[in-house]
């Protein structure tokens, strides 16, 4: 169960009014990715986990010898194994996919939340389905709809505090002194008023440069941050995405659990469908991993070990 605290401890900031969204234009198919020409391999059948371990050296060698196939592991590992002649049982396929999706601790938490929610609501939770989430909140949980238009959730900062401190030290000393002074003034205002105060306006000139230090992704929603005061909405939305669900996290424990599950699922390694896999493989569709990842190599055991 997620802990619900009254005050957030995360590094994320309180929600603020959002700026107009910038639309990222669709990325056309890249000319940099070449379609993969299938190679012929001796088939390998993996029935169980032991087969996977025994065949590892051969599998690694096949992938290392064909690096263009190795990168397909990031698209759909089961299908990628198939490229090197591997057939998997459903058990092994499920294991491979499951292992890749989440690290163990996230896997465990995901399983917990899915089981708990399923038990409580009588169906498998689908936080990635906005219409399902809407029905869940307003029909199943009977929550009062809230006005969330224009509000932005709080996100965790991807960098840890130590890294931020080291990066801060790279800034001009004059800048750091001004920031410390501004922060001190802000805290004085806050302690004097007893409540969060608007940060003093520091913009005195005509021009400014604003740097967006990170993009905010749903998987970094700060579930422990405080929510702002929210007003009731006249009617419930028919679709609720994760960023909107965020504002209901304190309305009901199950809403918070659903949000946490949604965040975890967002963090999962995406496995592409067969059709998507084929399109990516043939260069008809872009995928960042296909263009960014240049090689995946596995450590191969020496010949005498592999023969042992």
């Amino acid at each position, binding site marked *: 169960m997620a802990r619900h605290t009254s005050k957030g401890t995360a590094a994320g*900031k309180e929600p*603020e009014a959002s700026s107009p969204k*910038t639309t*990222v234009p669709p990325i056309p198919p890249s*000319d*940099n990715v070449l379609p993969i020409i299938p190679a012929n391999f001796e088939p390998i059948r993996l029935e169980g986990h032991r087969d996977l371990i025994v065949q590892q050296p051969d599998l*690694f060698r096949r992938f290392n010898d064909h690096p263009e196939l*190795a990168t397909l592991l*990031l698209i759909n590992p089961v299908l990628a194994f198939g490229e090197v002649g591997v057939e998997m049982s459903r058990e092994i396929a499920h294991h491979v996919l499951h*292992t890749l999706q989440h*690290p*163990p601790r*996230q896997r465990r938490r995901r399983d917990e939340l899915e089981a708990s929610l399923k038990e409580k609501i009588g169906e498998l939770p689908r936080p990635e389905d906005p219409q399902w989430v809407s029905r869940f909140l307003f029909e199943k949980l009977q929550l009062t709809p809230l006005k969330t238009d224009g509000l932005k959730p709080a996100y965790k*900062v*991807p*960098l840890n505090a130590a*890294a931020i401190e*080291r*990066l801060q030290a*790279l*800034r*001009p000393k*004059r*800048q750091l*002194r*001004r*920031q410390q*002074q501004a922060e001190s003034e802000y805290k004085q205002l806050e302690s004097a008023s007893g409540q969060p105060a608007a*940060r003093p306006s*520091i*913009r*005195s*000139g*005509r*021009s*400014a*440069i*604003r*740097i*967006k*230090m*990170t*993009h*905010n*992704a*749903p*998987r*970094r929603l700060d579930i422990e941050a405080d929510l702002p005061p929210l007003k009731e909405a006249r009617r419930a939305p028919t679709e609720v995405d994760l960023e909107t669900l965020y504002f209901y996290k304190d309305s009901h424990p199950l809403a918070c659990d659903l949000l946490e599950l949604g965040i975890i699922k*967002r*963090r999962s*390694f*995406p496995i592409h469908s067969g059709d998507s896999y084929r399109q990516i493989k043939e260069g008809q569709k*872009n*995928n*960042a991993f296909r263009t*960014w*990842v240049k*090689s*995946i*190599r596995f450590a191969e055991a020496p010949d005498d070990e592999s023969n042992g």
Partner: protein
Amino acid sequence: MSLTANFDYCVELGIAQVREIFHLAFKSEDRYPHNIGPLTRSLTGREFTINVRVHDDNDRPAELNFQDEKHFRFTFPFDLTTETPDAPDPALSRVTLQVIVEVPGLLDNWVEEGEDVLGVSFLGITATDVNITRLDGLPTIDINNFLAAIHNRYDTISHVYTDATSGSRLVLYDGNRDNTLNPPNSSGDEITAALETHSGDEYLKITAPIHVTVPLPSGGDYTSYGRLIFWRQVLTTDTTIAVQMGSEPALATLRTTVELNNVAGQQQAELTEIVERLHTTYDVIDHTRSMFGTTVTFYDGERDLSLVPPNKIGLPEITAVFETHSGTEYLKVTLPIHVAVSVPVYLSYGTITFWREVTRTDTTLSVNFAIAPANPALQTSVALDVPEGGLVSGPLASQVGPALAAFGTLSGPSFGAVEAQLIAMATTGINNFGTVIEPAFSESAARDLLRTEIAAYLSERRYPFYSPKSPDPEDEPLSTPVGFLLLPDNVLAILLNRRTGTPADDHAPDNFLGSNPLALAVGRAKVDEVIGEAIIAQFPELSKSNGSYTGQQPIETDEGDATLFELAVVPANPGAHGESRGHLWVSGEAEVHIDCWPDPDVTFSGPIFIDAVRVDSEEGCTLELQARAGEFDVDQSCCDVLLDLLIPIVGWIMLVIIENCIDAVGGELAADIAAGQAEAIEPIPPVINGIAEVTACLEGLDISSQGFVFPGEIYIRRLGRSYEDLMEDSNRPRP
């Protein structure tokens, strides 16, 4: 190719913006005075007060151009007014010249009030550096100026001159300027002058109306109006035209002369003197002579009453007149006589008429009675009252010569002596005019003088226009700005933070301004340095190794763990890696830790773009920068881990680069990183050395292998407002 040469940062401005700043700066009278003076100069022996007004308006604009890599070329139009209270010609006491001058200004840096500044220096310029492109209003001295000077000087000198010895008096006129003179100027003529050339020299011929009164020795006065005519040499140099009135020319033909209207009076005066001497000589000669049985008695009025017979009734005296015959002047004398012949007896009164030649010098005339003229028409004749048929008069005329010779040689003053006296008196008056010196600069002399004066004025001056002054007293001083002018593109490049070498190694950067009015650049070395520092700050287990950063940096995320072995972030050109835009090329290697599976080594590489969007609002302009990994869809969660590794570091790289750049160029920084974004304000110094308020709006970001370029716009406003500004706006203060 280099955006910033051997420096870290560079600000480039187009010449239009530099000119705008220049024109605004030039309006600051206290900093860039364009009303200069009054200055005092001693020129051609006279004190001049000089005022200069430099212009910069629509009709007469000042101008700035780029001459070479280190020099501006300024063009200044100005009016130069010279005043001297005692100009010989009052019309020349105030002269205004219209001048246009070109001077080079060195783009230099120095320390002013403890701060390093970049500016324009005129130190050390010489007259040869100054170019006069226009010079109008230089007066040309002509005869009218001389006349005006003479008339002006007349008012200051004495107009009546007296010779104490002779009592002669000369009055000098100039029209009716002095209406107290007695007698008044009958003609009303003014002093006139004309320029003449004699023996290759130029002279001023001056004619002045006069009146003379000369007491005659014989009594009475000779009076006459006339003219004083004199020449004086005109001496011309490159800077003056002078006439020394007190210096008479050596040429005999140019001696001072006096022309008097009363010529008859002159003759009468001379005759009177000669006749007086005749009378005086008569008193000492024999009055009775016997010759050839004839007794001749000479009379002269009642001078000898003892004579027998006495002078006939009426007592006629010896008389004389001047006559000219065949070009020779003679004295015709008529001498009353009595003739007594004994056999046969003949008695009669009569006269002897005879001529004697007059000999003149400048100051005397003389008549030698002993020499009879050869001209037969001028033979001595005798006329007797009692007719005698020539029997007595004829022989007597031929024999009376010796008796007439007894008069000897008579001399008297000619009127030339009077004229000499008058000229001496007039010369005193002429001398009182003194030396007339008109400052009269030739074109070349005027230009030379202006060049010298301008160079002398400017050679002590320099004017800062850019100072990356830190407003925080705790800061270390910012670096010395170094400037270059890029020709033929007409770009001012200001370099900051020398990275390598010494000032002797400084050289001009590339023109990255393009068609923008303003651009800031961060050099490749600085970009690499910041990238390296940011990488190590985020991944402290990595260290620099041959252009990338290597080591074993544990990465722990909610999505999984990895060990980062190598990371490199390199700015790349448009066109590199098949990307049309400039970008940061990221490459690296990591070992990904997968549960229940051997950890594979993953090598990765790809572009990160910095999207730059200018957003204008009521607050002003904002350049929004956001890093975006190429080929990544922001909603594609699969890649968020990589994005979380790369995007923040790029964000910090951008922040540190921009802040350090703005800090170095002297801009103003903000102090906030909030809600995942940071702000910096005023990219370049908002106030350039008290001249103008400058606001820069950066509009984009261009990445290349040479570094980063931020193109922008610049807005320039004069700092403070002057009366001139208010006048332009018709907004003068009202009562």
